Structure formats: C-alpha cells, structure tokens
C-alpha cells in the first residue's frame, strides 16, 4: 500500500487532531492497522528523528509528533489486539533508586515510543526490586536505566546484579544513560550499552536487537 500522506504529514507536524482524523478515515476505508503503522507512522517518526538529529527540530516538535502518533495508535491498539498482532519490541525504562530526575528519561521514552516500541515507563526512584518485578511481569526485550547524580549511579549496578540474581539478566538487554554516566562505566557494571543522548539510545536499541 502507499503511504497515507495525511497521516504522515500530521505526525510530522505534531498535529494530534489531524493524525487522529486521518487514522479514522484510513480505517474506515479498510486500510489494515499494521499497514498504517509500517507505511505511514513509523516513516513519519523516522523523519522526525532525522530532523531532530540534524537540529532542525527541537524536543517540543519531537514530542508533539510522538503525541500525535500515540493518539493515532490508541485507535489501532484494540484492532491489533483483536487480530492477535503485537508491537514488536517492549522496553522497560526508569530512573534508578534515589534519583528523581526524569527529563532525559522521558525524552528517551518518547523517542522509543515514536519509533514504534512499546514503552513501559516505571518513573523515577525505581528500586532494583521494581525493575526485576517489571522484567518478570512485562517480559521486555530491553531495560533502560537513567541517573543524573553521581551518587545514584551505583544503583545501576545494583539493578543489573538484581537481574542476575533473579535469573533474568540473559533475557534482556540493559542500556544506561544520564549526565554522569560513561561508556566506560557501562562496561564496568556489565550493561549492554550506553548512549549520551536520546536519539543515540534509540539507535542503540535497534542495533542491539538486530544483533540479538
């Protein structure tokens, strides 16, 4: 099928109302939900990501596009569920225990969502036990952890250790990020990857899953 230009443009311009209307119209015309996602929504978000990457878009444009896509997805989810189709990849994300900073984490979550991943956001001050519980219950492919404080970075290692102890470590890829975090630190604590920015995190998730 061809790209739905109205839906593509609405997402690119962050217009949630138009994205909703275009999705409704397409469904009424008999377009399959997964086709809308693959042919129009994901390409639109890819373009949004490209514009953000080359500094043509700021975060507000990025988030508005993500919100437009999410709104459209709300129309599609029940149809996908009914037909037995699932979102391809599930990501659990949170700011580690003791740390209340969440802007960076929120941007990563939004960009992941915009790239078509199912994102389960655990919020801030997430204990290792809660990360483990989320992995057990939600069965994600990836766990993303964020920390802004040097004194909360050790909670990343504690979380990885807790996943190991629970026998879950091999079931998920673990990515870390945040201002004081480095690639070296990621290696030291046994994380699978580190990104210094949100768009890099999305690429990292894609690459890790492609390698898996």
């Amino acid at each position: 099928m061809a790209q739905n230009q109205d839906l593509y443009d609405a997402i690119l311009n962050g217009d949630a109302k138009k994205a909703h209307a275009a999705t409704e119209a397409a469904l009424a015309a008999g377009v399959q939900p997964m086709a809308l996602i693959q042919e129009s929504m994901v390409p639109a978000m890819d373009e949004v990501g490209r514009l953000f990457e080359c500094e043509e878009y700021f975060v507000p444009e990025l988030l508005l596009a993500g919100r437009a896509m999410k709104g459209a997805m709300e129309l599609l989810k029940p149809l996908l569920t009914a037909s037995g189709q699932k979102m391809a990849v599930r990501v659990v994300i949170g700011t580690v225990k003791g740390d209340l900073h969440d802007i960076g984490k929120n941007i990563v979550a939004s960009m992941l969502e915009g790239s078509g991943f199912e994102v389960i956001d655990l919020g801030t001050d997430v204990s290792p036990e809660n990360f483990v519980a989320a992995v057990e219950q939600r069965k994600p492919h990836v766990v993303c952890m964020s920390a802004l404080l040097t004194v909360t970075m050790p909670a990343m290692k504690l979380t990885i250790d807790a996943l190991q102890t629970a026998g879950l470590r091999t079931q998920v890829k673990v990515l870390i990020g945040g201002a004081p975090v480095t690639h070296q630190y990621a290696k030291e604590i046994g994380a699978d990857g580190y990104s210094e920015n949100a768009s890099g995190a999305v690429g990292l998730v894609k690459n890790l899953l492609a390698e898996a």
Partner: protein
Amino acid sequence: MIVEATRKFTSLAISNQDQLLFGTCPHPLACGLGLTLGAGQVFPEVNFTLPPMSITAATWSDVTAHYEEMAAQILRRAVALAVPGIVLEFELLPAMTDEPEWGAEVTAILKRHLRAAHQKHHLPCALRVTPTDIRDQQKPPLLRTGEPWHRLRRSLELCAQAGADILSIESVGSKEVHDKALMFGDFPGIVFALGVLAPRDMAWLWSEIVAICSAHPDVIPGADSACGFANTAMQLAHQKMLPEVLAAVVRAMSAVRSLAAFEQGALGPSKDCAYEGPVMKAITGMPISMEGKSAACAHFSPLGNIAAAMCDLWSNESVQNVRLLSGNAPEAFTEILAYDCRLMNAATAAGGALALRDWMTASDEWLSPQAAVLSPAATLRIAAAIVAEETPYRQTIAAGRAAADLLKEGVTAEKLHLSRKEQQWLTRIESGLDELPTEEAALIAALEEQYGSLYDKSSYGL
C-alpha cells in the same frame, strides 16, 4: 491557604545601572563568622560533592571522611591565597535529606572546620546549607503535607541547629507542571507553572523557612533558585533540545517565583545557580551569589563572564572530590574562584569595577539570547517590568514580555544573531504572551484538562 507576602517590592532598590555591579549592594549582609556580603568585595563560595559512591549506613564513615577532607583542603587553599572571606556551601544529597541526622552531621563537620580556620587564621567565613527539596517523591507531589515534607522540615531544623549560617533551598513546587510544559514548548503551561503555581509554593515554603530561622537568630534565611526550571531550560538549550530564546524568556519569568522568597523575609544571598539573581538584586538590594566560567566543572553555560558582572559571591556550582594533577578538585576550584575574586576586588580597589563589569558583560552579551537578558541594562528592564505589576501572574507575563522585547531589539539592531528556527520560536513566544488571558483564573480554568491531574491543588492553596 494562600500565604500573603510580608513585604512587597514596588520599586527598584537599584535603578541606576552604574550601581548594579559586583561586590556591592544597598543592603549588605553580615553572616557567619565575621563575614559581610555586598559591602564592597566579592568572595568565593565553594560548593563540593562526593565522587560516585553509595550513601548508606555502611558507607557513612567514608562519606564523612570525604567531607572532612574537602573542608580541610578548601580552607587550606583559601588561607594560602589569603582570600578576604569565603563561604562554603553544603548541598545535601537526597539521601542526606531523607535521613535528616546525616545532613546535620555533615553540617557540624563543616562548621567545625570553618570555626577552626576563623580562630587560627581570622578568616571571615560562613556556611550555607541547602537541603534537597525532596517533596516531589510522589505524583502528584504533596508539597505541604506528608513524610517527604516532614523530613525536609526536620532537615532544615537540624541543619540550623548544627551550625548552618545561611539556609537555602532549590525548591521544586510546580516543576511537575513546568517540566511537561517546557518539553512540549507549551507557553501557557510554562506561564501557569512559573506565574501561578510556583509563587504560591514559594510563599508557603519560605514562610516556613523564615519561621525556622527566626527560632535560630544566627541563621539567615538565604534565598532560592529557579534551578529546576530555568537551568533545566538552559541545559536543554545547550544540548540543542530547546530553543535558546525560550530558555532566555523562561529565565526572566522565573525571577518572579524566586522573588517570592524575599517577599517572605529571605535576606539573600540568592543561590549561585539562580541566574535570575541580578533581577533579585536590582529589586531587593540584597546580595546574590552567581556562577559562570568557573562552574564548568558542573555544567556548561553561555554566561561565563556576564554572570560575574553583578555577583557578591562567586561560585563553582558543584565539584566532585576527585583527584586532579594539582590536588583534589574542590581545592583546585577554590583556587580558581579565589583568583577570579581577586581580580574583581583589585578592580574595585583601583576604581575600575564598572569597566571590568562592562567588559565581562560585553564579552558575552550578544553571543547568546540567554546572555542578552542578563546584562545590567536588561536586568533593570526586567526588574522594572516586574515591580510595575501587582500579582505574580502579571509580573511573570511582564518579565517574559520584557525579555522577548530585549531579544527582538537585539535582532533588529543586528547585535543578536538568531537562526531561522530560533527566530520562529521568538515569534511564537511573542504570540504566546499576547494570547494569555488577563486574569490568572481564566488560565487556571483553561489548563485544567491538560495539567489538572499533574498537581495537587491543596499544595498550592487552590
């Protein structure tokens, strides 16, 4: 309950641009052990923190050992360089506010070092203590009740008892709304957070802090910082995630919520990371702390020199206790600050303070929209716009409009160069300001659906 201001600032304490400069203010502040701020000299304010490590009962002896070491080394360098005075700032980490006794213990350690330096070397000095505002641990945050507030209050009290000379905080009331509005570039939401919610929380919180200080006559209620608001915007602009013009306008508007501390009885100095400090100084005449180029250990900014133009304390923001070639980082940054202050004080002694201030301003002013709203002239424009209005909501809009006008004038005069995308955002901000309702009640109602679930109304007296 809405807490009314105990004093209102309806005119500027400093209206002459030439009197708005570093090291001096109309209301100098005596504090700590023989130190007076704003009476002609600029002093270093050194802020320091732990290297990456866990803070637990098991590691607590290591934690206190770090603070012992940092205090000793900082004061050793201060004495070696014969600084005329110094302020140490202890910003509690969240775990130290969660366990108020821990923060108080470190406060006592630092005060012991300061007393020893004062007795042995006659070093004028003071200790600023800044507990973490931990009230946002649940969603929506409960700001006036609940365990986090009780722990924060106890932390403030215990730190006052343990030897703090100045109490400060970087409060976060309305951040739960501002973060979302900022990230979506939603101008009504930003104004709602900064001009409606934040001043209400500031008034309530600072009435509490002033009451705590009044029970400890030697403890001064310092002031606040819009760190969680305007510095968030500044850092995101630095990373090209937000427009610089938006960060600049947010900075100007944030001055209104920071002013609310002074309206409740805060005496300064405002926090180092409060880049809105010069506006406070112009309005209240009280001393301020600032940070710029010598805070690159903590974060980058486009305000390295201009931030010093009107400061009374000059800070490094925060530096970890890690080893450098010269020595440990807190001691190294004490030296950097000491030399920065020496130059400013030498300029003052030689009658050249105004010239140095203007050079520091000129070197940054038009290279960033955020610097353009921080010059002495811009500071007075924004401050005058604020005191000309009566309510925090209208003051916030007025400050935003003054900042947007300053930026537009800079562009028209071809001094400030904005990218096409930044110019589009400036136009968008101007439209956003024009479209705001005259009365805050209309804005509160209009944004109820969008933001109502994010904040606890009783926390704001709504």
